[in-house]
């Protein structure tokens, strides 16, 4: 997309971020460093600035990923008759994860996540907000809260949205909850592995930039009502929004979404399918200063054809996450970026052999696993344990709030604090409800 000129940089970033921050550019990314956080919003305990949430949509089985149980026999472990040693003694994972097995010094595993709920919507809500479902309020998830906090401090002037989802938004619950439309994530749409990653609203395949600009000019000339009502405040707001969108479209910020700006070797190392390339784009976004990126990795709700799906998905997950952790660490970003890989629940340890499942696994909220890396969390550790068949928590349960509260702490947001409701009152971050199984925040790795 041509060279970045100083004029273009200033034009494309709101608030003249270019002038304020340390600028280097490699591969077309602005290394934007947000200004220091203001008092009272982020605490000085803040270690992490960003989060990459890799959401295993539908729930991945703990036995087939991070909590292998080959000794439980084929009724439970299926074809996985052995587990794989990692480069950290004592940590074993699924044999389909050879690359992650070399990265165990960069992550920790939580094997005792539990909430007991088997409904996609409820469980997704619980895991992503930390709150149990029920009650009057719809609580925002971590991404929305971070979007709120970063936008309410004066330092966030990056033109990119603070909460980005690749590629489709959740659909199972409302991410922004009561915080409203403003903190809903920006869903990119498109496919990063396609020949052009058509990020919705920024890149429009089939229309040249020249034509875009020409027709925008036509629009501005022919917006007759806007001229007629040019004193009207509402009309003014609309024109302002349009101008901001236009700046976003035609600035150079769009480059950050383009995986083709990376070397081919890098792109291949991540895996040239949608998930792998999403990981690569996520790294680019976080490098540019975006606080929260979710990759919605779909297709884990494997009631049927479970092991066939695992044959495809596990290697993709392995390659993408391993490369992401390595890349972030080598660029010095891992200490500031929390990487979280998990879903809303696990899947039944005992395989459902009878029809109609024929070798599938169903929902399992009793216990499941999550991988956590970076952001000041210690690595090379295992938190919690399950019993011999992965059926229940054997040691140290981790409730959704235990997990979420730990993330808030690392991000410098006080988990015993509160957030403002748009109707004018404060809502505590911490849920009222006490989870049946809970072991407190993840102090073992903090």
């Amino acid at each position, binding site marked *: 997309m041509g060279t970045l000129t100083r004029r273009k940089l200033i034009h494309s970033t709101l608030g003249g971020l270019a002038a304020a921050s340390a600028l280097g550019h490699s591969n077309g990314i602005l290394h934007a460093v947000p200004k220091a956080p203001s008092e009272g919003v982020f605490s000085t305990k803040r270690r992490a600035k960003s989060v990459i949430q890799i959401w295993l949509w539908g729930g991945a089985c703990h036995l087939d990923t991070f909590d292998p149980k080959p000794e439980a026999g084929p009724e439970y472990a299926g074809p996985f008759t052995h587990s794989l040693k990692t480069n950290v003694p004592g940590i074993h994972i699924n044999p389909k994860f050879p690359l992650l097995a070399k990265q165990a010094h960069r992550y920790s595993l939580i094997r005792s996540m539990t909430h007991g709920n088997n409904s996609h919507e409820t469980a997704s809500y619980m895991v992503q907000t930390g709150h149990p479902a029920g009650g009057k309020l719809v609580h925002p998830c971590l991404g929305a809260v971070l979007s709120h906090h970063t936008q309410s401090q004066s330092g966030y002037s990056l033109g990119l949205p603070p909460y980005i989802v690749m590629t489709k938004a959740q659909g199972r619950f409302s991410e922004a909850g009561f915080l409203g439309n403003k903190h809903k994530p920006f869903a990119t749409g498109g496919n990063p592995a396609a020949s052009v990653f058509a990020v*919705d609203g920024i890149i429009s395949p089939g229309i040249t930039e020249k034509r875009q600009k020409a027709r925008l000019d036509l629009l501005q000339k022919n917006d007759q009502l806007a*001229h007629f009502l040019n004193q009207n405040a509402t009309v003014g707001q609309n024109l302002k929004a349009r101008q901001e969108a236009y700046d976003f479209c035609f600035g150079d910020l769009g480059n950050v979404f383009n995986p083709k700006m990376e070397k081919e070797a890098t792109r291949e190392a991540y895996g040239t399918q949608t998930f792998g390339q999403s990981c690569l784009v996520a790294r680019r976004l976080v490098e540019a200063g975006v606080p929260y990126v979710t990759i919605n990795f779909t297709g884990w709700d494997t009631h049927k054809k479970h092991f066939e799906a695992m044959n495809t998905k596990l290697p993709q997950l392995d390659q993408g996450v391993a490369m992401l952790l390595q890349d972030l660490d080598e660029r010095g970003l891992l200490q500031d970026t929390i990487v979280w890989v998990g879903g809303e629940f696990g899947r039944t340890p005992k395989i459902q052999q009878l029809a109609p499942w024929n070798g599938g696994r169903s929902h399992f909220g009793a216990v499941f696993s999550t991988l956590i890396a970076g952001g000041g969390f210690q690595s090379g550790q295992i938190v919690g344990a399950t019993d011999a068949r992965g059926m229940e928590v054997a040691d140290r349960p981790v409730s959704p709030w235990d997990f979420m509260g730990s993330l808030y702490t690392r991000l410098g947001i006080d988990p015993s604090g509160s957030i403002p409701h748009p109707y004018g009152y404060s809502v505590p971050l911490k849920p009222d409800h006490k989870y049946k199984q809970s072991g407190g925040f993840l102090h073992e790795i903090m």
Partner: protein
Amino acid sequence: MIINDQGTANLLQPLLCLRFVIAFVFLSHFTGNTKESQSIYERNEIENSSSHLLDIIIESELISRNCQPAPLCSDYVFLRRAYLDLNARAPSISEISEFTQKSSAHKRENIIQELIRRPRFEHYQVLKLCDLLRVKSEFPIKLWPNAVQAYERWLYDAIHLGLSWQEMVRQLLTSSGSNFRQPAVNFYRALSPRTPKSWAQAVALSFMGVRPESFTEKQWDNMAVFFSTIKSKSTLEWKEEIIYHDRDVLGDKSSPTQAYFPDGSSVMIPADADPRVIFAEWLTADENPWLARAFVNRIWTSLLGSPIIPGVDDLREDNPPFSQELMDILCQQFVTNKTNIKKLIHFICTSHTYQRSSRPAAGSPSFPGFSHYTVRRLEAEVLIDCVSQLTGMPQGYTSQVPEPFTYIPANLGAVRLNDGTITNPFLELFGRPPRDTGRYDERDNEPSKKQALFMLNSTKLNTALTKSKRLKKLIATKGKKDKQTLNKIYLSILSRPPLGNEIENYNSYRKKQGNKYALQDIVWALINSTEFSYKH
């Protein structure tokens, strides 16, 4: 003191007036086509003085504030406005030519009457009621899809049969039975948590326009007594729930219970009475000040764009109306006509006030007070339906939550989407309310950068515009003069013909870009214009 858009007093009125006078002079120097614009947006004849009760009051208010009313809007603007406000769609080309060619002095009144009679009017009112009553199958409301369908059907039938608002409220408050078979009971199911106090607060918000923070704890405790006997039980049918009055709650007392209405007056509830019935009698009585004011304020805001009592559903003593007289006359009309909803809307829409141009009169301040029409964005559902209508693209809605899945027929349109849980990214982006609270401001019609990004450049919209068969037909120039095609495009998208300068701009664009893109791009430009997505 003048009350501005946000309902707060503005003491700088004289200075503002001056600013706008200067701006107006500046503006007319640069637009150059003010006269042409004026003719397409405003009526050029001298306005006859109106004998409509609303106009008399508003005119005297304006005089007392040194404000001039804006001129009446043109026929094109009026027709589009009325169609959007009453039928949630834009008028067709034949509807426009039929209306503009009529010369009857009562044609505006007649089209209002006609639009109110149509089923689409009723469906649009149901959409608004569903926003108010939090009609949503999933968390946190959890009505459940079957109950949502039954409830919406009940609401539609009530509007269609012309049930008075008082009667609707009475039934919603006093019904007992199954959520599937006595749909009005869903009023009590459409909230969480279910306690007497939260029911009281729901009743207050929905029917009295009173927010939780506006009554004292004591008032809530007193009001909760009327809802303290509501119980629920399930049956063998999946997700069926029976809502009923449990006479044992108050019935085991040997004497009647004394209870207090929100206005402080008291009543004795006999041991065997359903207190909801007693409350409903109080609320739906003609003299009850809350019911009529809350409803009138809501309807007025949806038609005129700005409330008489600020906040729309924030009735309290220290929140005075723009004009007490105006509120009184509307409530009086409403109650005298047995709280008939259609008659209230007819009353409002046949006034000159409803027909004012959206540009304030020269030299007048630009905040309302209803001297001019308030410009505001179309609701998400109406906007998406307008885009679908133009491109011919059906919007298929499904909900995979919960299983079994719900499928909405492809051509039903978003205005008919009764379930707050069924949505899509466009609707959410453009502010469809989540229906968690039922407050009027839950619907967000504010513009945003993300919305503009979608309209300007989203893949979905671009694809719809280039691939749409209906649009291809619209912009086909074979055997037609270009001028005709441009005319048709403007009428279809903006409900009016193009102005001279617009034709010129288009022609010079076409010379540079070529025919093929020029027509596609003018369609794109018009859909992105303020005039398309804003009611004016």
